[in-house]
């Protein structure tokens, strides 16, 4: 369908080595995203600015002009799905904050308010067998991936019915069923994990000959992680081995109190993709439709076996780094600027303006989500805490090694084990 920008442009040239003019930050048009300049304070971008489309593998996504064209980016069903997912993420996080301030939740809680477009935009295009690896700010990605809200909320309260039975907590949401590979506390830790999952996918296809295995991995991480060595190591290997992964940078400009501009010698992160031989794309992370368009291309590339993509989403977290963060260093004007670009409000406006949904439809979804979250709270409150015996469980998958044999005893205790004649 014809749209104002064509993401296929960056798919056409996977290995641009002629990046001389593109490396110079001064050649980047200053109407481009706020932080690309070399000043310390981000230049606030007005939401109607026109971003130039760049050729080659560096692409800056243009403003969505679909309002003026008859072809829309999404159908009604897709639109409502996206809306519902983002509202679920927002409502859930707000409920977490409320419970934390009521002292019902404890420890570290990192909320995703404001960044929903990134999670929804990418994860709603993934299948259940596709995997994701995130940071500690993982509640909403877990919700988008399909883990029920009640399971996550129970986990946050440390109950036995949580998705990890209360052993992981807010920062360590895992789900084998939905292929959510975590939830990691260390910055940059999820990137190699995601790269490894992509490696598995490729291995299954090529070595294990599961020809239809086209599983894609999305690794989500922040701007702070982009100064970490692991990030570059994984970019290199993913491109070298053409792994089916999408590296999604949730650039919310701040790492606790450290501005991205103060920590990075070359702030545009998407430019680091071509240095390693993969396309680098920058997209407005406050607009779920733009994110979705870019995600379609990037995930498509990975599924076709064309290799990794680095997508930088310019986004913002409305709350502090964690609920314990006083958040005094961020300029209120900056916060107000991004609050005005709330992704949920933007999508709502788009759906209504384009007659894809009515106010009533959206209100019905809001109400439904409220009920889901309330039910999750009740479920979590009523759930039992883990039993004492759970403390020592799950340290190993198989404490004695080699599991239990057909006779019901541990195989390693079989006297024939060392002779090599035991049934292993």
């Amino acid at each position: 369908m014809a749209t104002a920008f064509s993401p296929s442009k960056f798919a056409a040239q996977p290995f641009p080595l002629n990046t001389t003019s593109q490396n110079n930050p001064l050649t980047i048009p200053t109407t481009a995203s706020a932080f690309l300049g070399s000043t310390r304070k981000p230049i606030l971008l007005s939401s109607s600015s026109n971003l130039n489309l760049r050729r080659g593998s560096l692409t800056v996504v243009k403003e969505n002009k679909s309002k003026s064209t008859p072809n829309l980016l999404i159908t009604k069903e897709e639109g409502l799905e996206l809306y519902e997912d983002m509202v679920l993420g927002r409502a859930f996080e707000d409920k977490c904050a409320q419970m934390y301030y009521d002292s019902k939740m404890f420890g570290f809680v990192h909320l995703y308010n404001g960044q929903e477009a990134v999670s929804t935009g990418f994860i709603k295009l993934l299948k259940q067998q596709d995997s994701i690896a995130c940071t500690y700010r993982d509640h909403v990605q877990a919700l988008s991936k399909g883990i029920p809200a009640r399971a996550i909320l129970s986990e946050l309260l440390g109950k036995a019915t949580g998705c990890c039975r209360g052993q992981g907590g807010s920062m360590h949401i895992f789900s084998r069923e939905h292929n959510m590979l975590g939830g990691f506390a260390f910055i940059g830790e999820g990137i190699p994990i995601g790269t490894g999952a992509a490696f598995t996918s490729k291995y299954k296809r090529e070595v294990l000959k599961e020809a239809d295995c086209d599983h894609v991995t999305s690794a989500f991480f922040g701007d702070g992680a982009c100064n970490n060595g692991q990030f570059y190591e994984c970019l290199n290997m993913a491109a070298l081995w053409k792994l089916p992964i999408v590296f999604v940078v949730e650039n919310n400009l701040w790492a606790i109190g450290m501005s991205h501009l103060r920590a990075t010698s070359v702030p545009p992160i998407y430019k680091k993709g071509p240095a390693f031989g993969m396309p680098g794309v920058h997209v407005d992370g406050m607009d779920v439709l733009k994110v979705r368009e870019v995600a379609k291309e990037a995930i498509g590339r990975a599924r076709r076996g064309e290799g990794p993509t680095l997508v930088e989403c310019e986004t913002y977290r409305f709350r502090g780094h964690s609920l314990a963060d006083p958040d005094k260093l961020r300029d209120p004007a900056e916060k107000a600027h991004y609050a005005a670009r709330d992704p949920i409000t933007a999508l709502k406006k788009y759906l209504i303006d384009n007659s894809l949904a009515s106010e009533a439809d959206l209100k019905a979804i809001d109400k439904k989500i409220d009920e889901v979250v309330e039910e999750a709270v009740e479920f979590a409150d009523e759930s039992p805490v883990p039993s004492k015996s759970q403390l020592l469980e799950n340290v190993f998958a198989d404490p004695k090694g080699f599991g239990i044999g057909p006779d019901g005893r541990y195989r390693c205790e079989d006297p024939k084990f060392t002779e090599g004649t035991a049934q292993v």
Partner: protein
Amino acid sequence: MLAIARQRMLGQSFKKILPAVSVLRSYSSAAKQITVREALNSALDEEMSADPKVFLMGEEVGEYQGAYKITKGLLEKYGPERVLDTPITEAGFTGIGVGAAYYGLKPVVEFMTFNFSMQAIDHIINSAAKSNYMSAGQISVPIVFRGPNGAAAGVGAQHSQCYAAWYASCPGLKVLSPYNSEDARGLLKAAIRDPDPVVFLENELLYGESFPVSDEVLDSSFCLPIGKAKIEREGKDVTITAFSKMAAEMLEKDGIYAEVINLRSIRPLDRSTINASVRKTNRLITVEEGFPQHGVGAEICASVVEESFSYLDAPVERIAGADVPMPYAANLERMAVPQVEDIVRAAKRACYRSVPLAATA
């Protein structure tokens, strides 16, 4: 676990305890109270003003005033050249710190928690700890690695590990772990002045606790020796060694007078103090927060068995954290960390008493 010990200890007013026991603390009369946070902050401040080669490096140490506010005010006082906010790259900035130390400066590298030091452990061990040896004394590394260590409250498995045993097993490193404000001030100053790499393990839950300090402690030249343990409380029935853990008040009530040794220095371990104490009491309990296998308690037990075996009247009791990654759920977390009750039970086992002699409090 410390929270419980502290609550019991500090919940009862300190003043009530002091006259009740024979005290080795030589405090002058009017004790001023400072928090561990203030103690660390003042130690850093004084050392930075005394020696221009000392500089701070770490995540959020500058504009954010420190992730736990330990470095509050230092950026304003010393400027961004001496208080460096780093990007999130432990391996990188630790390596840079070690390199700066090789070449003559005295960095103080902060890890937001010691869990993150695992990303930098190559530089701590291979570049810092081993270099004096490898270069036959030519390159000494006067660097301090500091930060909170061990369990906090509800922060999950990746934020709660205790690294005392890991770092203390490595020759070439000095490992210190302060308990109260006096320890924090004295040991940090000693660490910064020390020409060798020092791993300084603080405790997040203790940062806000106030302790009385004498005027001597507040003096800017105050320093505690590295490698000397402190006998926090003298006793005669059982020796309890701990770092950042105290439980003696509890035992007092039940008629067991425990001698509590605050190790202060994990490496070098003050074996002579520990052994002298065991020879006096004939029983030993080691208490630590970290994993039991190959822990600090294991080393102390081995040391005592080697040097004071004939003096032991009971097997050494080892209290450590549970042998599992730290669970998140609050009730499981409480079970995974030693509580005062565990220490009391161990003490009673060591003294062959299961019923208290005196009326229970």
